[in-house]
């Protein structure tokens, strides 16, 4: 039994695995882009805050 056959119970039958796998990859990639964007934001602010507090 291949993976594609295993997922046949999902909508889209014999193509279920391929379709849902592509949408999952898209979802994960977009989620990573957002998480990375927010971690860059936090890092930027904390680093700059340290820099300015040292100057004062």
């Amino acid at each position, binding site marked *: 039994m291949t993976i*594609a056959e295993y997922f046949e119970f999902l909508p*889209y*039958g*014999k*193509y279920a695995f*391929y*379709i849902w*796998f*592509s*949408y999952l*990859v*898209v979802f994960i*990639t*977009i989620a*990573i*882009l*957002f998480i*990375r*964007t927010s971690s*860059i*934001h936090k890092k*930027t*602010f904390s680093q*700059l*805050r340290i*820099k*300015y507090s040292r100057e004062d």
Partner: protein
Amino acid sequence: MWKWIQAFASPQNFYRISKKIIPWFLYPFIALTLVGLYWGLVIAPIDYQQGESYRIMFVHVPAAWMSMFIYIVLAVSGGIGLIWQIKLANVVAKVSAPIGASFTFLALVTGAVWGKPMWGTWWVWDARLTSELILLFLYLAYMSLGNAFDNPKTASKASSVLAIVGLINIPIIHYSVTWWNTLHQGASVSSVEKIAAPAIHPDMLMPLILMSISFKLLYGALMLMRARDEVLIREQNMRWVKNVIMEDGK
């Protein structure tokens, strides 16, 4: 017009205005994605040749369009930064690269997953697939070249030149299905003859258009969010940046 561009392109104004613009990208992105997904996964009819598998198209094609669109934005803004020394243009080019690379990655992966049931193989070294893979390498080369210099000005200059030279790959990707014999199908929407009368059912075309607009909005939101932080880093010796940072925690 020029004055307006100059005013917006000043880092401080950009920082202030972009904050107001981001929600206008983010919320329509969410709404259009939901409608587009419902239309594409539920309403759109089954393809007479490919059955259900063609539904991968609604993420594959917009991702592939974005991979080229973002590269053009990157090269053009890199060029503007190079010629007119507009700092903001270099920022836009730099933060666009990882987003564009992600869309290229998505186009390649969803294409491979679509290729397996339709062509019987995950990958073939044909013109369309190879040129898209080269695009991914161009993005990666652009990012590593940008990180290879300590001075952001030198980094921008070197990587912009690379981006402009790499622009030659974009028409090659687009016309690869016409110029060479390939497994990849030809254009159904994005060619001069097809744009007025797309060779695709309206119920398949609509979700495709919705998803491609939603991906553009996503890029707009992510790019602005990342550009704001990049502006702060590059302008960190300016008084206004210090004010922004110190007022943030209060």
